[in-house]
Structures are given as C-alpha cells and as structure tokens.
C-alpha cells in the first residue's frame, strides 16, 4: 500500500484541526486544565468538609461538667446551645446532630451506674453521619479510658476486658496498594479521555466535511477512498491518544501536587512497567473507539446528528468502564471478549501486578480484531454513495 496519500491527508487534517479552537479545547484545555481543576476542586472541597467543625447541639449535660469539657476540648464540633426544636434543626440541616448527655452522667460514671448517651441524627445525610461517627468515636474513647482507670484502681489487668486484640497487617506492596486504587480510576479516565479526544475531530472530519461541502472536493481527487479514511482515522487516533496521555500526565501531576492528608496515607507508588503495559493495551482500544467515532460521523448527515449518535456511544463505553471499577468484578475469560470492559479489567490486573500473559493475549487479540473490524467498517462506509450523499 502506498502510504504517501495517507500521510498527505494526515498532515492536512492535523493542520486544519489544530486551527480550530474546539479541537484545542477538547484535546488540550479539557484534559490539561479543566479535568485536573475539577479533580483538585473536588479534593479540596472534600478536604475542607472533612476539616470543617460539625455544628452539634448539646442537650442536657448541666450536671456533668467533666464530659462536657472533654467534648469541648476536642475542637471537632461547633457546640450550639440546646433548643427544643432540635429535631427540626437536624432535619433542615441547620445542625448536623444533637447529643444528649444525662445531667447525672459524671455522677453515674463515678458510681459505676449504667447510663446512656443519646445521639440524634439525620440518617443517610453524609455530614450528619460524619458528626455522629465523630461523637461515637469520642465517647468510645472516653469509655475505654474509664474502663482502664477502673481496672488500674482495682489492680486488675487490662486483658480482663480485652482478652485479645485484632490487628490488620497489609502484605501487599505499596505498588499493589496504589494499583488497586489507580486500577479502579485510571481505565475509566483513559476510556473517557480517549473518547473525548476522538469525538470532535471525528465529527469535524466526516459529518463536518459533508456540511461544509468539502467532501465532494476531496472525493474528486485521485486518492483512493481507503487512503482518505485511513488518513482521517489516524488523525482521530492521534487526537484520542494525545488527549488520554495529556490527561494522565496532568491528573497524575495534580494528585502528586495535592497531597491531602487522605492521599498522603496512600503510598503513591506505581510500577512503571505496569503503566507501560496499560499504555500498550490502550492502543487497540483507542483504534477501536476512533474508528467507531469516524464510522458514526460518516453515517451522520450533519455534525448535530453525529453528536446525537455519539452521546449514547459515550454511555455505552462508560458503563463497562464503571462496571470494571466495581468491587468483586474480576477478570474472567467470559468477560475477556466484551470490548472496553475487557480492557478495564486487564488494566486493573496490570496495575495490581496480578496479570497473566494469557489474559493479556486474549484481550489484546480480541481488541485487535474489534479494532480491525471497526476500521474495515469505516472504510466500507466511506465507499458507500448512499452514506456519503445522504440527504
């Protein structure tokens, strides 16, 4: 095959696309600026919310200064004075929770009598649940302190109430730990970014050309239609991979830069070989997605129609990627033939270091076949008059 015409089409389409602000937006601005800003923004909000003092109403506790003082010392709650309509205030989210400390709480503890702390919440409301959790943690800690001091007073060992302890030990390497988390997010992000990067160029070079009347000009040139569609398809593929790569780099840098307390606990260690593997297995997927977007764009009469067709396609690609991120959905040979899902599951395995060569071969092989079929469909469609001149 003479590749010169393909290269000519590729160079022209690339030049043409880069002069369009919409391409620059979808290929560079979205992955490099907007997506990291969204991620950083979400993390910042989560972080701020976690640090924010929960507004909690203190009910009773008048005769229990020790418990109330301990609660105030904690600095986790913005304690507001008691009010009779506390249930309404919780329901309307004006306060997150209310804690009722019996007035004889301190005395009951001192005398060894059983007493009850009551926490009022709005079940299912995240901030109310967070406040309730913090209150429970505080009182549990206080209970343990009291038990320990009582045992000490009676010269009894702590093992009397705590005969044994349960401790968790992580045997996975830091790379595997990071791999589990990244393996859930990364394939999804890459698939979405591949599609975001491919969609606009694919529409512009197919349905857009029909709309602008340049397709007939191009068809009057002596270049074979196969070469024309391959040149266009390669540009879409490049845009798709470039968007995914830019997105990966910028989001990675953003995460490293933003080491919140929550993320600092996570060892940010990834196996470079696994990452390289993800990049390699992404190629047939990107070819597949690029060819599908080109095929859809060719079929459509206008950019608007192409957009209408591509919205469900985006959903069709996102759902398997999300499925793969669910806990318990692991690689098996039945799922290995479902496009997108197979790649997502394989990426998960690669990043956690549990991948087998057999899985790689099956997924890479099946995706290569799907990619080849999608390219063939695009080429076949580009040769059909009824499609090119649909009115």
């Amino acid at each position, binding site marked *: 095959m003479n590749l010169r015409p393909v290269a000519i089409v590729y160079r*022209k389409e690339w030049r043409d696309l880069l002069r369009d602000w919409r391409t620059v937006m979808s290929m560079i601005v979205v992955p490099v600026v907007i997506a990291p800003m969204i991620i950083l923004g979400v993390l910042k909000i989560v972080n701020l919310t976690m640090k924010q003092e929960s507004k909690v109403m203190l009910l009773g506790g008048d005769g229990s200064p020790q418990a109330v003082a301990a609660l105030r010392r904690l600095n986790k709650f913005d304690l507001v004075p008691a009010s009779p309509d506390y249930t309404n205030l919780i329901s309307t989210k004006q306060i997150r929770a209310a804690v009722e400390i019996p007035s004889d709480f301190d005395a009951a503890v001192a005398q060894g009598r059983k007493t009850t702390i009551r926490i009022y919440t709005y079940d299912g409301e995240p901030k109310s649940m967070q406040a309730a959790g913090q209150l429970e943690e505080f009182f549990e800690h206080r209970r343990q302190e009291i038990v320990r001091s009582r045992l000490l007073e009676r010269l009894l060992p702590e093992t009397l109430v705590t005969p044994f302890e349960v401790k968790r030990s992580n045997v996975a390497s830091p790379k595997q730990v990071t791999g589990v988390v990244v393996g859930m997010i990364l394939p999804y992000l890459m698939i979405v970014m591949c599609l975001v990067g491919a969609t606009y160029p694919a529409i512009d070079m197919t349905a857009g050309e029909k709309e602008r009347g340049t397709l007939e000009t191009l068809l*009057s040139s002596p*270049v074979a239609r196969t070469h024309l569609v391959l040149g266009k398809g390669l540009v879409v593929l490049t845009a798709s991979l470039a968007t995914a790569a830019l997105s990966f780099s910028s989001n990675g840098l953003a995460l490293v830069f933003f080491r919140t307390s929550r993320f600092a606990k996570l060892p940010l260690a990834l196996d470079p070989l696994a990452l390289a593997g993800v990049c390699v297995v992404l190629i047939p997927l990107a070819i597949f997605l690029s060819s599908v977007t080109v095929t859809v764009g060719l079929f459509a009469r206008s950019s608007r129609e192409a957009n209408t067709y591509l919205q469900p396609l985006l959903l069709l690609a996102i759902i398997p990627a999300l499925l793969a991120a669910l806990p318990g959905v692991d690689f098996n040979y039945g799922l290995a033939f479902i496009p997108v899902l197979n790649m997502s599951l394989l990426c998960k395995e690669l990043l956690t270091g549990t991948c087998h060569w057999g899985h790689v071969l099956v997924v890479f092989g099946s995706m290569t076949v799907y990619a080849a079929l999608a390219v063939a469909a695009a080429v076949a469609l580009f040769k059909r*008059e009824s499609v090119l*001149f649909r009115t």
Partner: protein
Amino acid sequence: MIEARGLTKLFHHKKRGQIRAVDNVDFRCEPGRIFGLLGVNGAGKTTCLRLLATILGPTSGTASVNGFDIVAAPEKVRASIGFLSTATALYGRLTAFEVVEYFGRLHGMADSVLHPRIDALFQALAMNEFRDRRCDRLSTGMKQKTSIARTLVHDPPVMIFDEPTLGLDVLTARTVLGFIRECGQRGKTVIFSTHVMSEVEKLCDSIAIIHGGRILAEGDLAQLRARTGVESLEDIFIRVVEEHA
C-alpha cells in the same frame, strides 16, 4: 475526450421508489471544444457529471474520460480531471495557498514541480494578494479563484464544471466563464452544466438538452435551430422538452 455510453444511474428513494437520475445517456465531448449540458433543476446534470468525475458509480453503462474507463480506472479518471461545482467548497481554516498545495500533493505532484506551478497560477489569476489568507476570510470572488486554481493545479486535460456560476455575482460569474472559455482554447476537453441559457449560447460549441435524466437533443446551436425551427435557445429548449413530454 469524454465519451459516455449508455450511462445510467438509479437511486432508490423510500417514498418515491426507484428514480432514474441518469437514463441511458450517450454523448461525446471533443478536446478543444466546450460541451454544454443544459437542463432544469433536477434534470440529472449534477448526477451525470458526478458519474464522469467518478464521485458516483454508474448503475449500468460506462464512460471513458481521457481514455480511462470510469468503472475500471476511477482513480486515473480523477487524476485526469479538474472538477468544479457549487458543491466543491474550500477548507475554511486553510489558506488559499495551502488548499491548492494540498490538492497538488493529492495529485502526486512533487513540491519541486508543485510550488512553481502554484506561483504561476497565483500570478495568472491575480491571487497573490490573498495567498496566505484563510479561505473562510475570502470574498466569494477570491474563493472562486482559489477553486479554479485548485482544479488547474495538476493541469488536467479534462475539465468538468457543474453549474459553476450558481449564486455568484455578475463580475465573479464573468471571471469563471472567461476561465472556462480559456480552458477550451487551450485544447482541454470541457463539459459544462447549467440552466442559464445565455451562458450556453455564449460558451458552448456543442449542446445537449437533458431532461428527466435523458438527453433529448444534441448538436451545435445551428443544428438545434434547424431541428426545432425556432431561434432562441430558450424556445429550442421548451420545444424539445414539450416534444418528449
């Protein structure tokens, strides 16, 4: 030279069923002569020219363009033609130079040949003023000149014009018609479709009246006058169409 033999194109329409857009058409265009295809909108002119340009494939029959068969060697046919129509737009984000250069390269021209050729064309068509301006910022006249340079860049022996003056102002239309005449004078085979009678009268050496996908009459103006017994081309056209109604 262009020679059509039994050229037929059928389309299938969901509601109207089978449409014979071009129906068993035969004609011959000689080098150095301008062949006019005259017909009303929907007569089959555009489909006929798209078949000759191999943008569409015939249902039956064939044609040879510059000695190449449109079915057997469509790429060689396209390499031999310059195709200009109202539907052949320019890439708005490319400059006039880049558009012409792109099509020169698609025709397999090496840069060493292509660039002097573009310089000569731009000089001849007075295009240097807007050479590096994006096509979406050109006036209609400038765009039409760019399209002409695009069709001529590979110096094709056959020129196909599909209603090239449609929607153009008088001055731009005049430039285009002058260019078509020049192509004929340079010995190129020219086929030109229009529904404007005056353009045909001014330009064409030979005229074919097409209606309902069929060629109803063919000859030079004198032959058509003799055949119908009327003087003006408009009357000739109406007489021929009515005869076959």
